[in-house]
């Protein structure tokens, strides 16, 4: 099978096939933990770590995995790395671990990761798989960071905890609540697709 170049992978992962903005995968963490920049960044990095590590493993063993048990094998690998990521996050910062709550464990069922293992890593050699996984992870991180920045800015008037809009700004609390998440996501999707249509 022909391997895509690194440049192609990045273009697709970050923009033309962005997992969040185009494929609409991984909506659960995108909506749930994008209420601040710090949470969004931690979730983006954790997901990218799991994505890259499991892509490498899946790609290494791709010739020995019988098709009938491949999903079970992928899930086993993904779950292992998610547990590793959870312990790592908790050891580094209890605060971040508390803020992300159950959503770290839920990375296991993030469709971006299983989708990448199934459609790419299980059919390509390790290096292109890792590059592809990394670019998809970056695309996910980029999208969730954009959500986090907009929601924190409008909902708290701050970015990364630093107050940027001043004391007189009255926060739109709704942007921190689930409803605001849907609203911002819809708005981002609209902007993205409008831009894409006009660029064409």
């Amino acid at each position, binding site marked *: 099978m022909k391997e895509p170049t690194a440049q192609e992978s990045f273009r697709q992962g970050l923009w033309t096939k962005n997992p969040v903005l185009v494929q609409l995968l991984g909506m659960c963490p995108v909506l749930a933990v994008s209420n601040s920049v710090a949470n969004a960044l931690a979730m983006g990095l954790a997901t990218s770590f799991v994505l890259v590590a499991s892509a490498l493993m899946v790609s290494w063993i791709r010739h020995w995995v*019988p098709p009938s048990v491949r999903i079970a094998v992928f899930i*086993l690998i993904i779950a*292992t790395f998610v547990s590793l990521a959870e*312990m790592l996050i908790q050891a580094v910062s*209890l605060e971040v671990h*508390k803020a992300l709550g159950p959503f770290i464990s839920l990375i296991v069922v993030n469709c971006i990761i299983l989708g990448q293992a199934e459609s790419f890593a299980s059919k390509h050699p390790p290096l292109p798989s890792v590059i592809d996984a990394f670019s998809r992870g970056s695309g996910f991180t980029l999208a969730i960071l954009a959500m986090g920045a907009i929601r924190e800015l409008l*909902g708290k008037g701050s970015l990364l905890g630093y107050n940027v809009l001043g004391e007189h700004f009255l926060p739109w*609390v709704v942007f921190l609540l689930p409803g605001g998440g849907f609203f911002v996501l819809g708005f981002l999707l609209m902007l993205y697709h409008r831009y894409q249509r006009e660029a064409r």
Partner: protein
Amino acid sequence: MVALLVGLTTLCGLLLLLAHAWSAPIIQQKQEAALRSALVRVLPQAKTFATWTEQGGQLVPPLATGKDLRLFEGLDNQGQRVGWVIEAQGAGYQEPIRLLFGLDVQGQQLNGFEVLDSKETPGLGDRIEKDPSFLANFKALDLSQPIRLVKPGHKTKPSQIEGITGATVSSQAVAHIIQRALASRLPLVKQ
């Protein structure tokens, strides 16, 4: 196929085992440090804390594995008791709230408060953790009379807790948790 599955599961298990062995002590250390700094914020006069739990109306040392709510006896450098910190838990708006509050030696005044764990609504209910005028309630709360929650701006007695506009349920929850904990803990403290 069987060999692959067995090998892979063993490898994953080993990886997790190693990671757990490495991270468990660090995580426990961090949790203890976080608890200690919360205790010091609630009862700044204390230099060390003795940990107790309640069993059949008596103070007993907690079991290592115990999940019981704890009482922390604050001691100064001479080992003199300077106050108590009570751990309490109860229902919040959607998820449980776990908090600490500090009492003076005689159990007559509540003079420290800190939320340990809560998932109250961001921007509304979570103000029980940071709102300065709400937290001011717990700087000197009189316990000689039963404590009551009142509407914002209606506090007239030192035994009243002034709620937060927009966080009615969460401030009620805090008041209930403290009332319940006081009912069971005050007799122990006064012994």
